[in-house]
């Protein structure tokens, strides 16, 4: 498991949780995929835990890591 974290803020704008109507906060979350676990800080609703994965992360490093965890 890797635990050196980095803050991934939204690509733009201020985000509000659609369900709880409170602003998202930068909170530590653990992303799990197959046998990989990644501790990162992401925009998250402090009430319900809904997490935003910024597009740049989802289509960038996250997809690269996902590819490396998959095999032919």
């Amino acid at each position, binding site marked *: 498991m890797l635990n*050196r974290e980095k803050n991934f803020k939204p690509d733009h704008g201020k985000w509000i949780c659609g369900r709880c109507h409170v602003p998202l906060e930068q909170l530590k979350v653990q992303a799990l995929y197959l*046998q990989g676990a990644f501790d990162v800080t992401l925009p998250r609703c402090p009430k319900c835990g809904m997490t935003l994965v910024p597009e740049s*992360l989802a289509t960038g*490093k996250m997809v*690269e890591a996902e590819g490396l965890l998959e*095999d*032919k």
Partner: protein
Amino acid sequence: MHATQSLCPVCLRRLEAAYEEDGDGAVYLTRTCPQHGRFSALVWPARDAVPSLCSFDQWHVVKTPSYPERPQTGTDKGCPYDCGLCPSHAQHTCHGLLELTLACNLACPLCYADAGGQAPPPDPSRETVSGQLKRLLEASGRCNVQFSGGEPTLRADLPDLVREAKALGFPLVQVNTNGVLLGRDPELAQRLAEAGLDSVYLQWDSLDPERLAVLRGTRVPNLLELKERAVEHCARAGLGVVFVATVVAGVNETELGDLLRDAVRRGPVVRGLHVQPASFFGRSPCGLMSSRRFTLAHVMQAFCDQAPEWVHGTDFHPPHCEHSLCSFNAVYARVGSGLKSEREGMDKAMGGGMAVAAAEGSRIAKAYTARLWARPSQDAGRGDGAGADCCGEGPQDAFSQFLVARSADRRFTLSGMAFQDALSVDVERLRGCCIHIVRPDGRLVPFCCQNMTSIAGHALYPGRLDPAHDLAPDRSGDAPV
């Protein structure tokens, strides 16, 4: 065990066929031609011959078919006589192969394309190749591209063709070569790299000059030395190299462990070792009927026996793109001067035994090959984690650290592919093929269909560089060759 269809190796007519197991667990593909009799080919060896491997039954991935979005031929005579692809083809293109020439600077006793003869047909023109690339893109999207032949480096416009393929957006562009010109001309690798070439698929059969001569002839006496120089030139140019060994029982099957150790020793420029048990089509030093069948399972067991320090039977898995009997794959991490398997957890990654959609298998295989066979990055070998911090924003996040630790540069693939000849051909495998040769007229023909020849040498799809040639003759009925 399992019913399928095959061909008569004499007349290439389609026949009902079956996989049959004998008392020792060896599996054979058998069928009977009403005119030429019964034929049988070993597909999986007896249990005691492959003690490190799973059984034939377990070597299997279930796939739901994915049909061509834009078929270029109709379904008329039935598989394998309608290739182009027809609407019944069950897998997308993973690799599109373009044969740029049938000229060659070697005259290998073993050559699937029967290239390097005294009077090869004219090379397809630049315009023809451009048309083929565009047709491939229309039919198959952004798959991986391999320029093949003959010897494609003999074409002076090869860098231009590479540039054109990259400009069309194909993610991995590879050249399949014997390495002679790459070894002789130190600038060629650089020119190809500048054009955007990602990977060199380098014929690499033996480290012993005498064995090499059996497979590759003696036209170039210092062949091994030139190949080694080619690797150096590719490394300098930043190109990824995949070593490709054709294995013939009785010639080089005892050398697989040494080939693996040698490939690893040469460092990250060598992205993997890919082994192809010889198939009997085109030109071959051994007869189709008389040769000992060396199957994929034999190859995997040979690695377990000859490189036990790194390779174990559980490292290998069947493919998720092509048919299970067409290939195997294993991924290792380069650790120190050796290898460590990265198999753990991969079953789960691919659905844990669930049926895989062929389209998803194809997507993953394309991305996998593009990632692991391409040029090593500038950061290859760096262990400080700085390589992945593209943004230069200070401390590494967990994703970046992972990307460095598991980067493609530190991985090594050990893979193999068993092509089908007229004795081992299974129509179901042909229908699931993802490696398609783009003919000059733009039709896509599965690799083994394009290369298939009968015992007497008649091709299923003749006139490989002739744009005007007819489709495969009708052998679906009772008319033998």
